[in-house]
Structure formats: structure tokens, C-alpha cells
């Protein structure tokens, strides 16, 4: 149940994509999300998907890992695509089967939604698979640092994010352990109605919260005893540096996105 948590899973590698500055990758990913919604037509979406596959291939990660994110969200993808195909009535009829009609508009709506979701999820996976959670949090902090001028606690927010990510595996291991301990005492998580199932969560959630709060307390003491006092004047072990790889990645991404937007928005392209 909790063994398959892949959020923020990082797989170590030496590819250019791994080595690139997390800020570059984060901006490129955000730009890609924008592009996904700006382009139109079958060909631009397929071309964008192909480009993304090429990028994923650069990371030299096994394809299985890259597509894992899709697997966990397959229900949402299938459901929303199906809804779009079934209830869209625009354009000419392509196929008729009893009460159901597939129109050109419906086919395109289904297709574009499928492509948008798939591209966004896959791009997100490529980003998190090639970037350490610490790197990502550092990138967010660095990119948001102008907000410090208006007293937004950017460093603290990034620290909260880093700690949260760091504790996902710890807490999920803890959950598994508590579930086992309660199961050994006769707890049953599979049977009973909705109320019964909700009730069976109490023996798990209470100890889990108690231990999470205890952990937070211990962590706070550990951080303070190492003289942690927030972001003011703090340096980093791995400071972010914008190097040659980043320039290359950034230029490639910028050129590709411009081309996609220019080409993908032409109304004549289908």
C-alpha cells in the first residue's frame, strides 16, 4: 500500500540532465507546462511528445521508471479522456455506434487531454527522477528569493519543503510498522463497511501523529543544537552554479518552446 510511493523519487545518474542546474530544469518544466496548453493540433502534440521522449532518453533512466508516474494516475487519465470523448458533440460525425457518436471535435478533445496529461506527468517524473529533492527545494528558494524583499519567509518555506520530502520515506516506513503491529493484535483493515474501515484507521493514525510530532520536536532540538537560526546569512554546502550544461539546456529549451508555440498555434495545422 505504501511501498510504491514514488513522489520525489530520485534515481542517481551522470547524464547532462542530472548535472544541469535544478533552476534550469525547473524553469524548463514550468515553461513546458505552459507550452502544453498553448499548442493546438495533432501534429504539434505528437511532436512535443516525441521531443519529451528524446529528453527522457537523454537522462539514460530506464523507461519503466519514467512511465511509473503514468501508471499510478492511469485511472484519472482514462476517465477524463473518456468523459471528453463521450460528451463532446462538436464537429462532424466520424463514427456512429447506437446512441454514441464520435465527432471530430470529441476525438480531438480526447486526444489533446490525453496528450496534455501524459506530457505533464511524464515531464514531472523526468524532473524529479533527475533532480534531488534537496536540489529542487534549493531551486525554489533561489527562484523565489526576490520575494524576500517583501518579507516572504522564502528560506523557511523551502526548509519546510525539504524536510517534508526528506520524511516521506521515514513516515511511510513508520506507517508500515504500525500497521503490522496493529495487525498482529488483530486489527483488520480490509473488512467492514465504510465506517468500519475508517474506524480501523484510528489505531494507525494516532500512533503515527504521536511519533511525527515527537520526531518534529527531536529534529527541532537537533537543528537548534547545530545553531540553525533560519536563512539570514546562511551559506550552502552545494551552492547552485549556472554552467555550460545549463546554458546549453536553457538555449535548447527556449528554442524548442518558441518553435512549438509559433508552429503549434497556426490554425491551419491539424
Amino acid at each position, binding site marked *: 500500500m505504501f*511501498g510504491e510511493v514514488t513522489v520525489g523519487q530520485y534515481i542517481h545518474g551522470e547524464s547532462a540532465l542530472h548535472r544541469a542546474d535544478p533552476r534550469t530544469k525547473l524553469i524548463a518544466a514550468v515553461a513546458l507546462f505552459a507550452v502544453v496548453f498553448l499548442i493546438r493540433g495533432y501534429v504539434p502534440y505528437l511532436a512535443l511528445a516525441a521531443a519529451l521522449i528524446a529528453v527522457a532518453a537523454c537522462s539514460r533512466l530506464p523507461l519503466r521508471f519514467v512511465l511509473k508516474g503514468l501508471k499510478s494516475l492511469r485511472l484519472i487519465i482514462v476517465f477524463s479522456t473518456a468523459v471528453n470523448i463521450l460528451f463532446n458533440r462538436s464537429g462532424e460525425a466520424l463514427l456512429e455506434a447506437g446512441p454514441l457518436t464520435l465527432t471530430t471535435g470529441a476525438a480531438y478533445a480526447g486526444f489533446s487531454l490525453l496528450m496534455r496529461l501524459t506530457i505533464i506527468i511524464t515531464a514531472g517524473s523526468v524532473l524529479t527522477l533527475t533532480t534531488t529533492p534537496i536540489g529542487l527545494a534549493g531551486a525554489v528558494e533561489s527562484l523565489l528569493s526576490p520575494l524576500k524583499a517583501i518579507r516572504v519567509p522564502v528560506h523557511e518555506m523551502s526548509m519546510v519543503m525539504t524536510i517534508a520530502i526528506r520524511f516521506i520515506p521515514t513516515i511511510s516506513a513508520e506507517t508500515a*510498522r*504500525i500497521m*503490522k*503491529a*496493529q*495487525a*498482529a*493484535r*488483530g*486489527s*483488520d483493515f480490509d473488512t467492514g463497511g465504510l465506517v468500519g474501515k475508517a474506524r480501523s484507521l*484510528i*489505531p494507525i493514525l*494516532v*500512533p503515527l501523529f*504521536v*511519533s511525527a510530532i515527537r520526531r518534529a520536536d527531536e529534529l527541532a532540538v537537533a537543528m537548534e543544537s547545530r545553531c540553525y537560526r533560519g536563512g539570514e546569512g546562511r551559506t550552502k554546502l552545494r551552492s547552485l552554479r549556472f554552467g555550460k550544461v545549463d546554458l546549453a539546456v536553457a538555449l535548447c529549451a527556449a528554442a524548442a518552446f518558441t518553435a512549438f508555440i509559433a508552429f503549434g498555434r497556426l490554425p491551419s495545422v491539424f
Partner: protein
Amino acid sequence: MPAHPMDIRIKGLTHVYMKGTQFEKRAVDGVTLSVAQGQYCALIGRTGSGKSTLVQHINGLLRPTSGTVSVGGMEVAKRNLRAVRAAIGMAFQYPEHQLFEETVHADIAFGLKKSGADPAEVDGRVSEAAKAVGLHETLLGKSPFEISGGERRRAAIAGILVTDPSVLIMDEPAAGLDPKGRDELFEIIGRFHRDKGATVILVSHSMDDVAAHAERVIAMDAGKVVMDGPPSEVFADAGAIEAIGLLPPETAAFMARLRALMPELGAALTVGDAAAEVARALRARSVIASSQGSSQ
């Protein structure tokens, strides 16, 4: 004692974690083992040797990748899970982390109620279990979060003993306890073992605890059982114990060094046995010395 003894039989058990991924790990590798009802066994081995994985198959918390496990003739499978878990009490490391109810009493009663015990019996059995672990009656009405750490550990153990399990599996039960708490805990386990005829499987890194309490020692390394026998036999070979990443009990090591001075010394694993053995050897010497003295 139940009508048919709750013998544990493990046949060709293999467990592979994360099968088919780059993280694949063969934690238990073809283990065949039986434990008769009423035995006090210790399972030893370095961290990652597969001890915890192995014991979690006995009450079906983990499913074998291959092989079978049966308890009292019942195969540990989904259809028997309820009956098997009712017969087996299991404490993980730091069992006090499982406490969640509003009162200590309710927490001890949790497993009992889950097993469908007669509500009229619950109070009596909870009091009995609390007494067995030395938990004062006045603590039963308190929240488990306002009693001391040692009392929490006792409350958690009481919540396991309360269902009268035929088999008690303890994974490092004494971790984090002070020496007195440690002795008292082993006394509780020992008393339960003797009075109820329960099987005890103790998973431990403390060879001294193992030597002092277990009648059978099973040593694991890299997912396989590498030694199995009474403590005197398993700990006799210090080299073999060290080869699997463990250290023999301190008393055994002490006796081995003392033997360099007194070659006639026998083996001893506990402090009491060692004292008796040294006394015997010294007495034998003085008898020899005095008889030599008298013959001159």
C-alpha cells in the same frame, strides 16, 4: 494448553523484497525450520540477516515468495489469518509506539476485543495481564501518553499477553531499557513461558540475554540458518559466531580468557554458571594442593 500443540513448521521459505526491480533483495533464502510448542528459542544474526523478515511470516504479516509456513497444523494463509494471529502474540521493537487508546485499560483490551472475547471477561483479563507485567492498577485509567516510558512498554506487552497467545514473538523487546527494566522484562517473558507453556521466539542482538534465557539458539546469516542448537553448543564455537558478524556472550569470552590461566575450566554462558564453574575449579585445586601438602 490447546488440544493440538501449536508447533511452527517452516518449509523452504524464501522471501524476496521488491522482486523484479533494481532494489531486489533476497531476505530469507530457503529456510526450513520447526519449533515445537513450549520451546524458548532465540533468533540471532547481524542486522539484515533476515530474522525480522522470517518471524513476520509466522503470523502472516508477510507472504512467502515461495515455501510454506504452518502453525498448529494450520497453513498461514489468508483464510486462516484470524485464527493464526489470535494464537500468536508479536511485539516489535519499541512496542509502546503502538499505543493509541484513551486509557491504558482500553489499549490493553484492544486485541482482546478484536479476538471476540466475552465482554464480561475483559476487565478481569486486563487486570490479570496488567498484574503479570507489573503495571499498577491505578495506571489503568490513565492515558497511555501520561505514564512513563517503562510503564508504556509494560502496557504494550500487557496488550499482547492479554489474549493468552500460544506463541510469543519478541523482536528486540528490551531495546532502550535500563538494566533493571531489562531483567524485569525477561522475567515477565520467562514467567509467561513457564506458566502458560507458551512458545517464545526471541529476536535479539544481545548474546548475553540469549545465553541467559533461551534453550535453543538459531543463528541466521544472509537469509539462511547457519547454526541451530542449545546455547552451550552454538556459543562453543566463538570463531563461527564471529564469522557471522556477532560476538559471543561476554561471560563466554571471559571464561575463554580465564582458561589460559586455568586450563581445567569448563564452559559457562551466564554469570551464575561461570561463578559456579570457577568455584568448582578452585576447590578442586585446593583439594589437590592440600592432599599434596598432607602427603609430604
